[in-house]
């Protein structure tokens, strides 16, 4: 499935590719398989995301390593202003994303809420 995602992304099927891949991300995060991602599952997944996109494995994320991040958002998340995000800073920013994505405020993210968050 993952290779299929890469193939789709490589040939730029755009929305279709990101939808298929987002589905894989959702299933991976939804550890108790209740079709909702609670905050604990979300932060567990984001810890993995931090590790996996930290390409030089130096324990911090640069703006280059985080693809498609808005510069202003990156700097807002960089609380100590050292130019990189620690895991704590990254998870805190993602915590805010969870709040913003959880539109019905029930403490869990549905597929629709995940895909609808921009």
């Amino acid at each position, binding site marked *: 499935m993952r290779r299929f995602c890469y193939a789709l992304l490589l040939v730029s099927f755009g929305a279709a590719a990101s939808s298929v*891949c*987002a589905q894989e991300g959702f299933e991976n995060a939804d550890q108790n398989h209740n079709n909702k991602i609670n905050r604990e599952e979300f932060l*567990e997944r984001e810890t*993995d995301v931090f590790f996996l996109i930290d390409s030089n*494995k130096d324990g911090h994320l640069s703006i280059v390593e985080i693809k498609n991040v808005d510069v202003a958002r990156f700097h807002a998340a960089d609380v100590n202003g050292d130019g990189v995000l620690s895991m704590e800073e990254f998870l805190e920013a*993602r915590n805010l994303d969870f709040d913003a994505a959880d539109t019905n405020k029930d403490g869990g993210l549905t597929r629709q809420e995940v895909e609808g968050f*921009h």
Partner: protein
Amino acid sequence: MAFAMWWRVRSAVGLLLVIMMLVACQNTQDSGVGTKTAIGGLGGAAAGGLLGAALGGGGTGIAAGALLGGLIGGAVGNVLDENDKRYANETAQKALEKAPSGTATSWKNPDSGHSGTVTPTHTYQSSNGSYCREYQQEITIDGKPQRSYGTACRQPDGSWKTISG
């Protein structure tokens, strides 16, 4: 006439109050709290989407000679031959380096018939900042799967070394 004038003044004052309230609301949104709320988080597009879709996988990323022992041990380790251990170790290194938690990476030695999977289950940073991952390992010998659990930490040379399990 006096009533008309009074009505106009009343309307003007009312309109002024509404405008003042709108300006006050706008100022509140422009304050630190409002701005922080508006910009909070990294946004849905960052890091491959909200859940980091399509992360992990790819090549093994294992440098030759970087493998460390310790991922296989106990009674199971005694049954496996050298090729089994090599398959299992390479798979463990690959899974720990590239696979998201919950995703199994498998190996099979066609000569011995033995097979196995390695599944990272939890990722964290140790106090010195290095990455550690808990994992589940399943090795199937003669059709019987045997499961074990452990924790491995990433070494400065990019290899993974078991610290427990």
